[in-house]
């Protein structure tokens, strides 16, 4: 296929973006309708709607490949402000990530929920597809107001997933989640309304609709909005909800807390930085300050991850770190760094979801949740731990895995922006990644003995995680494989800096 970067993309009306939203919407109500009594039909619905959505996504990718950005204006939210969708290259990256991993995780979650005989599975699958609807909407929205609608749908539906256990601890985690995210969203809403009041425009444009940023008020609004949406991206010091939310069932942690929810936060922040404020620098080295603030999260999260014994919580801190890495890459305001940052969105998604699925499989087969209990587990579950090792090495940035690629671009971009001190941040972060991931691998394979009682998890769980592990290898070697990720990213870059 030929996805030439720099070619002029034409907008074209199409129903596809709408279909991609309606499918999970109707699907979720079908799930509710089938309920506990017809669980096979219910799970069938989940699989069908996730495959259909993936199909629509690929059709949109195909159209983009032919030079068309598909768009659909639905109705007016406010006079002059449409509820509208647009499948632009940047949105497509996030869309591809969420829909492709949704299909994989649906298979996994069916296996997971049934093996553990979880309660309230209908609510689980209903909220799950609503949350995905939110993520898809965030990816496809063509202005900040539409994005906010889906952002809130995502927030609310995820609440029921975080608190799914219904134990006091889970309820506490759910409350914490809401306090952080709803407060963040209020700040974000303030920013959005302020921009609407001042500019009468909220559409995402390459280069943004805001001219020179000179006054302090606008800088302040940017900061408030960035931090407000940054709560979803678990920026420190607003990150506390994420490790607590790991109480949720593993598929939720995997897809939502590694992929959809937090990435929606990162995605929104980048959208605001690049498509609203137009990647222009703010006065008085403001962005430098913000970069330092984000760097603090990059390092701090990794330091916290090291001393965390609970496997899922350790992964959560690693997520906090990686999200900050993406944001920091975006804040560098250079070509290569943005390339690295955007690539890291799907790449980290693939690797992190593998790790979470492994954690879930380990829990299902052995009921173990702590790193210190994992001695010798690699002998009993070679496939699972093999996948874990691949993904962990990828996150440390070892070539030829995909984590290396994004980090390479990030480092290049830092040099390009002549902010060479930030190289230290990247390298320290990668080093700390290794510090907390490799001991797990070491314990699993080189310590302890085989426990004959533990077997691999059911196939419906093992196959998805092998697939995503394979994915992170293949994407590292051929970043254009299937999803044309590199081409998409090049299109985004060229819309800002030219070819």
């Amino acid at each position, binding site marked *: 296929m030929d996805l030439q970067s720099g070619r002029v993309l034409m907008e074209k009306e199409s129903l596809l973006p709408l279909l991609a939203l309606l499918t999970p919407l109707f699907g979720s109500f079908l799930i509710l309708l089938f309920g506990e009594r017809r669980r096979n039909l219910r799970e069938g619905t989940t699989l069908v709607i996730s495959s259909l959505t993936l199909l629509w996504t690929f059709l949109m990718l195909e159209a983009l490949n032919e030079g068309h950005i598909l768009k659909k204006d639905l109705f007016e939210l406010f006079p002059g402000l449409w509820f509208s969708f647009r499948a632009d290259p940047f949105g497509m990256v996030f869309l591809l990530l969420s829909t492709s991993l949704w299909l994989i995780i649906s298979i996994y979650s069916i296996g997971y929920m049934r093996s553990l005989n979880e309660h309230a599975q209908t609510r689980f699958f209903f909220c799950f597809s609503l949350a995905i609807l939110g993520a898809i909407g965030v990816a496809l929205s063509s202005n900040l107001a539409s994005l906010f*609608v889906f952002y809130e749908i995502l927030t609310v539906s995820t609440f*029921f997933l975080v608190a*799914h256990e219904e134990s006091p601890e889970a*309820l506490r985690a*759910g*409350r914490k989640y809401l306090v952080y995210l709803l407060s963040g969203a209020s700040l974000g809403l*303030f920013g959005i*309304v302020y921009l609407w*009041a001042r500019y009468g425009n909220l559409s995402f444009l390459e280069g943004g609709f805001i001219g020179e940023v000179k006054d302090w008020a606008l800088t302040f609004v940017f900061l408030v909005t960035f931090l407000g949406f940054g709560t979803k991206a678990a920026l420190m010091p607003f990150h506390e909800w994420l490790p607590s939310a790991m109480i949720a069932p593993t598929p939720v942690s995997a897809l939502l807390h590694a992929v959809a929810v937090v990435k929606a936060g990162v995605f929104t922040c980048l959208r605001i930085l690049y498509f609203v404020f137009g990647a222009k620098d703010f006065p008085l080295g403001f962005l430098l300050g913000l970069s330092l603030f984000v760097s603090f999260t990059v390092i701090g999260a990794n330091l916290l991850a090291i001393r965390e014994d609970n496997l899922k919580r350790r992964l959560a801190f690693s997520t906090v770190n990686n999200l900050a890495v993406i944001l920091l890459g975006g804040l560098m305001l250079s070509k290569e760094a943005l390339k690295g940052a955007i690539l890291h969105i799907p790449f980290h998604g693939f690797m992190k979801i593998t790790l979470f699925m492994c954690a879930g499989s380990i829990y299902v087969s052995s009921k173990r949740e702590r790193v210190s209990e994992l001695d010798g587990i690699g002998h009993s579950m070679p496939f699972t731990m093999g996948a874990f090792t691949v993904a962990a090495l990828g996150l440390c940035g070892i070539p030829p895995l995909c984590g290396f690629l994004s980090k390479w671009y990030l480092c290049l971009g830092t040099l390009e922006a002549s902010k060479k001190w930030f190289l230290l941040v990247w390298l320290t972060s990668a080093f700390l990644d290794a510090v907390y991931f490799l001991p797990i691998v070491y314990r699993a394979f080189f310590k302890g003995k085989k426990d004959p009682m533990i077997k691999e998890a059911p196939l419906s769980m093992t196959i998805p995680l092998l697939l995503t592990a394979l994915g992170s290898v293949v994407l590292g070697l051929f970043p254009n494989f299937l999803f044309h990720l590199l081409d998409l990213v090049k299109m985004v870059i060229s819309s800002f800096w030219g070819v």
Partner: protein
Amino acid sequence: MNEQLPALVVVIPLLFSFLIYLMGFIGRRMPYFLLLISSALTSLSSWKLLIRVIKEGPISYHIGGWEPPWGIEYRVDHLNGVLAFVVSLVAFLVILSFRERVEKEVEVSRWSQLYALFSLQLCGLLGITVTGDVFNLYVLLEIASFSAYAMVAIGKKGGEFSAFRYLIFGTIGACCYLLGVGHLYILTGSLNMVDIVNLLKNLPDSSALRVGLCLLVIGIGVKMALFPLHTWLPDAYSQAPSTVSAFLAPLATKVAGYVLLRILFWMFKPTFPSEKVLLEILGWLALIGAFFFSFMAIVQRELRRAFCYLLLSEISLLGMGVSSGNLDGLRGAILHLINDVFMMGCLFTSICAFIHLFENEGLKDLEGLGLKNPWVSLGFLIGGLSVIGIPPFGGFFSKWYLILGTIEGKKWHLLVGLLVSSLINAVLIFKILERIYLKGTHLELSKRLPFCFSVSLLSFSISLLLLGGLASTIVKKVIDPWIFSLGGF
């Protein structure tokens, strides 16, 4: 028939209220069905009225053929046209839901009395909405209030006392309003609103006029339960029969809110010398109120009391929109008025249904409701999410305009109040949702809700969704024409 519409929306419930009471002697169930028919007819005529107003502009109706300013004029423009429709529709939905509840809650001998009062109440509320005469408004205000006192008093033990308190407060409010009308009458010699508007233009500013305005605002403030004139409301509405609070909570305070808008922006103008100060004071009071009520709401143990405070904090938001006083603030206030009628209708009908099922209204008793009855839970879910401004429900859209209004008016204190009080309300709503969906065992038995309750709750939920989708249409077709007719925007 079409010419008589403005009168019909008032006359139908008025006549029916007599008929309902009389028919009570013939059949036990008759009054209810008459009430249902009366509210359905009213909704229908108010819908036709609204359509006519949108097509042809404001309608003036002269009662008994007496020309204004001597006779009483009913004047329907975009604002009260839409409000009359919304009020009668929500009244219909509430009435549709509650027959079985009334029969369980109120003794047989009182059924026809209560139903007659409902109809009279509806007559009063719609009359306040469509009248174009300040004194006639007072009369209708008293009709609505007195039927409300009686309805509250029918309630459980303690109801009489809170009804009495309500009566004292309500009467003081009505007196203030009447005194204000007196001031206006002395100064202008007219009671007709259009006439007053014209006469006020040439009237020099005087302390008598200012006092008159303040008295009007205080009087309406009591009826509207603005902070700090709210003290009657939580007791009255939580001691009343659950059906009565489901009927009064969404409607009564909102209609008073409409009168406030009418007085502050249509009869008087924000350019009026003392009004700027008045709006400023109103803003601060609404701000304090919003915080206070939101906090009070989360510490209540009883569901209905908590929602009464929620209602009060929503009214405070209305006050903030009024206080912003600019185009978007007004849009927000009016849209919020419309949304709030539906949101409170949804929440209070849910409470009514909940009490019907469990004869209990502690917050604790909500546990496991999601499994026991999906419809009541749906009402709480949608109504609650809309109240705290989660898109895509109606509440989000009015909050958007309110925020926009405060930003454009540079009223930062109100902005903070809006955002923070919504967050505090979210605590209450999610406390409830958590109990409904995430607590309780998974072995709960489902309880069957009367069919009409489910229909009504479903309609409320759908309307809240529609209000979100239609927000821009409502603003363009109804709200903007009214605001632009005021001039100065």
